[in-house]
């Protein structure tokens, strides 16, 4: 006979708390659902880890966590920035404050750094080249 009671849910969800013993481990039975809430028009599930007692949601640890604007708008702002549009122009097009765009860019850069550090490890190469490229930062000052 199988185990009695309801089947365990959320077995693919891992605790994002780095101090937790079961951090990053899935299928340990430590994570259960803790209700849902509506954020930016979408239903977001909350979870609780019974090992460390911390609650978290689907977006915890992601770039979108704690950002109020919807994901599509933020993605669009980042794409526009990558294509070379100024922060003011992006803010104008998306009808948001330029401070918000700046904050999204800063968050994205921080997250990219984390991903980079995580992905590029133990690289075995025979040759590394190092060089400097002149970049225009603070255009105004360089023209003075």
């Amino acid at each position, binding site marked *: 006979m199988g185990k009695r009671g309801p089947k365990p849910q959320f077995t693919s969800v891992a605790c994002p708390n780095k101090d937790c013993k079961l951090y990053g481990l899935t299928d340990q039975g430590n994570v259960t659902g803790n209700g849902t809430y509506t954020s930016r028009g979408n239903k977001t599930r909350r979870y609780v880890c019974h090992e460390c007692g911390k609650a978290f949601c689907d977006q915890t640890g992601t770039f979108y966590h704690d950002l109020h604007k919807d994901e599509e708008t933020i993605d669009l702002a980042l794409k526009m920035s990558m294509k070379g549009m100024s922060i003011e122009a992006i803010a104008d097009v998306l009808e948001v404050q330029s401070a918000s765009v700046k904050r999204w860019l800063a968050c994205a850069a921080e997250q990219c750094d984390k991903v980079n550090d995580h992905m590029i490890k133990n*690289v075995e190469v025979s040759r590394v*080249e*190092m060089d*400097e490229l002149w970049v225009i930062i603070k255009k105004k000052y360089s023209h003075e």
Partner: protein
Amino acid sequence: MKNYEDDGQWMWVSFAPGCRLILDFVIGPRKQYVADKLVELTIKHLSDKIPLFVTDGLKFYRDSLLKQFGIMKEFP
């Protein structure tokens, strides 16, 4: 563009041409501390094997690499 040669900000890049991978970059002036930072960040991504470092000959790289990998040996 008057002060093109040395003044202003530079993007210091370290890359692995074998796999076309940018390992890391630092933005800063042409100063020793920026070279130190770049070398330090680059080493974090590498395995224990020390690769061949190829540069444009800027002396800051030599000093940074010596700081990281150099071993002082004194002969009697």
